[in-house]
């Protein structure tokens, strides 16, 4: 605004000026665009959907404001945010959670920051980050020998931590409020993972128990339980003692009577979530609708799955390297949910399809908006016979190949019809979008242990056990017996044999994390399936019959920068923004202590992280870009000096100036 009025004023002077020299000078001045205060918008999800992300965004916005940036927080609903960020690249900064609950291999960074994906839409490189050194190292770690790989990955992390395409904030614990009266075993895996749900056991003697429940399988929990919940988060606004007495008068005499486990009906695992996307869309490749892919992983089997530290054969019976760069994968006997047989042709189709969802129909390939790193490993896939597939993987090492085996296998007879261009009312929308990518995939046909039953968008979705699944056909005791362990079928761990332990899985959408905990406490749900914030966690300890389970998670929170936009294109500027993220304070406030601050995205797999990139526990600070300030207060002077050193300028009143893009 300021510059327009100035230009108008100067235009007036220009008209009044008579001498040619003066006109020229006025033109020189008026023709320049004046600088104005830098505006940055941080996009994220609202607190109802994710209690942590908006707290991180707000804290960063306040610190940016303090140093002279006009920073704003803009909240968008789940699918809306991902559409803006991942698909349209319409953002300055955003705060989100990485989609991977279990510890991941460094190859996961390939899709995230490789410059070859900067022009694509989807989860692959949403930052538009490009760095030749990073590309080289990403390629090198795929082909390196295990010994070299550690060094390559260390060098990769050093560059990423310095360049900051995104700022890792911390690794939250996967928290869930659960009841143990029908199901146990919540601590075996992160409860938000597909294998975590499969590992659950039915309580012996629980309503409808058929007698095959394995009872107490509460094995190795590395988490803390219940009672150590931190202090009251509402800052004493709701005094607990007063609360109870007052609430008694506030509550109605009509007692809530949960409809728990009615006698002979199907055994239902009931979950409460704040994320409504699973009730609206079941497309495993729709990046904007998927979070960790927990439920779609139960609908769509993968050739292999990662169980703890090892990769175990799943839909694949086994695989072996037959020649350099060639793998032969044999499949289990399986059927799709619609009764069609699952063959090697489906697997070959899936690998071709994920690389180009148009299957050659479009002028250029239209890759999927997620799984891009993994699908890029497999150069070609060919069906040898009905149950054997040959994968050509070039120079890729074992880790990259094992990741490539963990892709959802899709039925060719369903997805082949979706390879045309996406249309609305018969009109082509855009040549780079196929029907497959925008499909809601109603009534999904997979081969997984669960199949779809019904849903009410925004409210609930129900799945049921697939009686035809191979887990059901496994001999429950094979591992305990003397059967030779060379039989690959025996490599399925006991925890998943003859599972799931429920007939139905019902997911209900609730308004907030607090409401989700309340559903569990009142007996309407067995567990929560979305993140729990500092308002919700302390409630769990207060409610009887409800426990907090906590497992470590690799799904770090991060601040993403749009490197396509100045000044976020400047790594120096990103580094200074990173030093405004007060990680240790955020761990205390936004995560109520249930998180670990970190610098490297691989911090959940510490073996990969070089010493100098580990979080400085002693001084509670980031080893690369420590928070510039003390006790939550930004050291404004120091930050401004750093910005001035990087070439930025300030108005006399303290605003950070920027040229309009």
């Amino acid at each position, binding site marked *: 605004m300021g510059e327009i009025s100035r230009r108008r004023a100067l235009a007036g002077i220009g008209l009044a000026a008579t001498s040619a020299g003066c006109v020229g000078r006025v033109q020189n001045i008026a023709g320049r665009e004046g600088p104005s205060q830098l505006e940055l918008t941080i996009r994220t999800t609202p607190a109802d959907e994710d209690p942590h992300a908006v707290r991180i965004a707000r*804290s960063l916005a306040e610190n940016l404001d303090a140093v002279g940036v006009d920073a704003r927080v*803009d909240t968008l609903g789940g699918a809306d945010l991902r559409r803006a960020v991942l698909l349209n690249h319409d953002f300055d900064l955003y705060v989100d959670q990485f989609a991977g609950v279990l510890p991941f291999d460094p190859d996961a960074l390939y899709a995230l920051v490789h410059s070859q994906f900067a022009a694509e839409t989807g989860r692959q490189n949403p930052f538009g980050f490009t760095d030749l050194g990073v590309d080289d190292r990403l390629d090198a770690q795929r082909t390196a020998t295990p010994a070299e790989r550690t060094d390559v990955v260390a060098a990769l992390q050093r560059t990423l931590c310095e360049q900051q395409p995104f700022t890792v904030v911390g690794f939250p614990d996967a928290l869930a409020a659960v009841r143990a009266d029908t199901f146990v075993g919540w601590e075996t895996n992160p409860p938000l993972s597909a294998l975590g749900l499969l590992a659950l056991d039915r309580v012996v003697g629980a309503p409808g128990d058929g007698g095959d429940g394995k009872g107490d399988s509460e094995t190795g929990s590395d988490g803390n339980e219940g009672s150590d919940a931190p202090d009251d988060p*509402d800052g004493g*606004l709701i005094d607990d003692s007063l609360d109870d007495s007052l609430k008694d008068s506030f509550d109605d005499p*009509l007692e809530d009577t949960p409809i728990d486990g009615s006698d002979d009906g199907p055994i239902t695992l009931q979950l409460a979530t704040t994320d409504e996307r699973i009730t609206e869309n079941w497309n495993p490749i729709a990046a904007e609708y998927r979070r960790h892919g927990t439920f779609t992983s139960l609908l769509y089997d993968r050739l292999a799955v990662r169980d703890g530290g090892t990769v175990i054969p799943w839909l694949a019976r086994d695989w072996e390297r037959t020649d350099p760069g060639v793998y032969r994968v044999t499949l289990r006997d399986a059927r799709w949910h619609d009764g069609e047989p699952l063959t090697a042709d489906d697997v070959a189709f899936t690998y071709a399809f994920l690389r180009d969802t148009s299957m050659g129909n479009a002028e250029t390939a239209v890759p999927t908006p997620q799984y891009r790193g993994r699908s890029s490993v497999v150069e070609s896939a060919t069906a040898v016979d009905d149950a054997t597939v040959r994968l050509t993987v070039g120079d890729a090492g074992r880790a990259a190949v094992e990741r490539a085996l963990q892709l959802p296998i899709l039925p060719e007879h369903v997805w082949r019809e979706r390879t045309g261009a996406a249309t609305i009312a018969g009109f082509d929308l855009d040549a780079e979008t196929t029907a497959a990518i925008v499909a809601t995939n109603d009534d999904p046909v997979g081969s997984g242990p669960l199949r779809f039953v019904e849903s009410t968008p*925004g409210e609930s979705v129900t799945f049921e056990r697939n009686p035809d699944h191979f887990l059901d056909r496994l001999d429950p005791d094979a591992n305990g017996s003397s059967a030779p362990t060379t039989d690959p079928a025996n490599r399925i761990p006991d925890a998943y044999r003859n599972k799931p332990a429920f007939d139905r899985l019902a997911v209900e959408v609730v*308004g907030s994390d607090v409401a989700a905990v309340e559903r569990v406490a009142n007996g309407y749900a067995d567990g929560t399936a979305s993140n729990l914030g500092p*308002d919700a966690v302390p409630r769990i300890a207060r409610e009887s019959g409800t426990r907090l389970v906590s497992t470590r998670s690799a799904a770090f929170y991060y601040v993403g920068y749009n490197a396509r936009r100045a000044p976020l294109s400047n790594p120096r500027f990103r580094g200074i923004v990173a030093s405004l993220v007060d990680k240790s304070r955020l761990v205390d406030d936004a995560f109520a202590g249930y998180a670990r601050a970190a610098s490297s995205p691989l911090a959940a797999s510490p073996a990969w992280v070089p010493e100098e990139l580990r979080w400085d526990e002693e001084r509670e600070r980031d080893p690369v870009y420590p928070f510039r300030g003390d006790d939550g207060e930004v050291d404004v002077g120091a930050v401004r000096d750093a910005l001035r050193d990087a070439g930025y300028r300030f108005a006399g009143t303290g605003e950070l100036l920027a040229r309009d893009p």
Partner: protein
Amino acid sequence: MTPLLSVVSRVLLRVTAMCAVAGVAVVGPRRLYAAAGNLIPYVREARTEFATLLVVLLVSAFGRDTLQTVSEVAGLRLTGTIYAMEGGFVAWIQSTFASPRLTLFFSSVYVFGYTFLLVFPFIAYAALPESTTLKRVVVAYGLNYAIGLVVYTTVLAYGPRNVMPDAVTPLLYTFEPTYQTLVAEVNENTNVFPSLHTSLSVTVALFAVRTREEYPGWTAIACPLAAAVVVATMYLGIHWLTDVVGGTLLAVGCVSLSSRFVEPDGADGEGDGNASPPGDAPSSPRHEEDPTR
């Protein structure tokens, strides 16, 4: 669904009790008896108004999901703008005034007080000798919902509790999470501007001021109660100050429009709309205007 039923029955129980007490105290048994007699003829007279309100409510109930989708695709995303405009005003209210007793008070006001405020005018104004006020209230409610729905679709914004959860506690839901189930049934969390709690409460208060001659007791109840609802929307962290200002403007507009749409009844009170209006209203050739205009 059972938790929802229990909340709804709780609200029904309380509000019925409040209406019964207020009915006897404010309207009086004699006039209440008259109201029962007026019921059928008034509903018949105001059938256009009631039908319109019903249509608006049905559209609001069944079209909400569709309109929400339209809003997500084409709506103006104003959360950041509103926050930048008013900053931490709501956070200031909470940090300055919040206490357990006030939280209990404002939660009750927000749920029970508000519902009572909306329901009681039907009883009180049905007991009046002519149906004009009742019709106007019905029209004003309809306008509030209709305009509110249009603005909700145009503007996509989240409330303060969703943007600054560190500074604004969602006190209502933290206090009594089951209410979130109830509120989620009737509203989306992106529908904060304008505040319909504010606009409808202020609407009722404005009518209460107009009928202070007939029901001085109701004026004395409605005005403070409406003010409390307005403060509650902010105290509980649900609405921005901007929403409250928008809601108040909406209320003033709807009340004055309702007076223009609904002409006073004739002195015969039969409501066929042919009698000449009494002197207190601007004379106009229009009778029995279609309130949807």
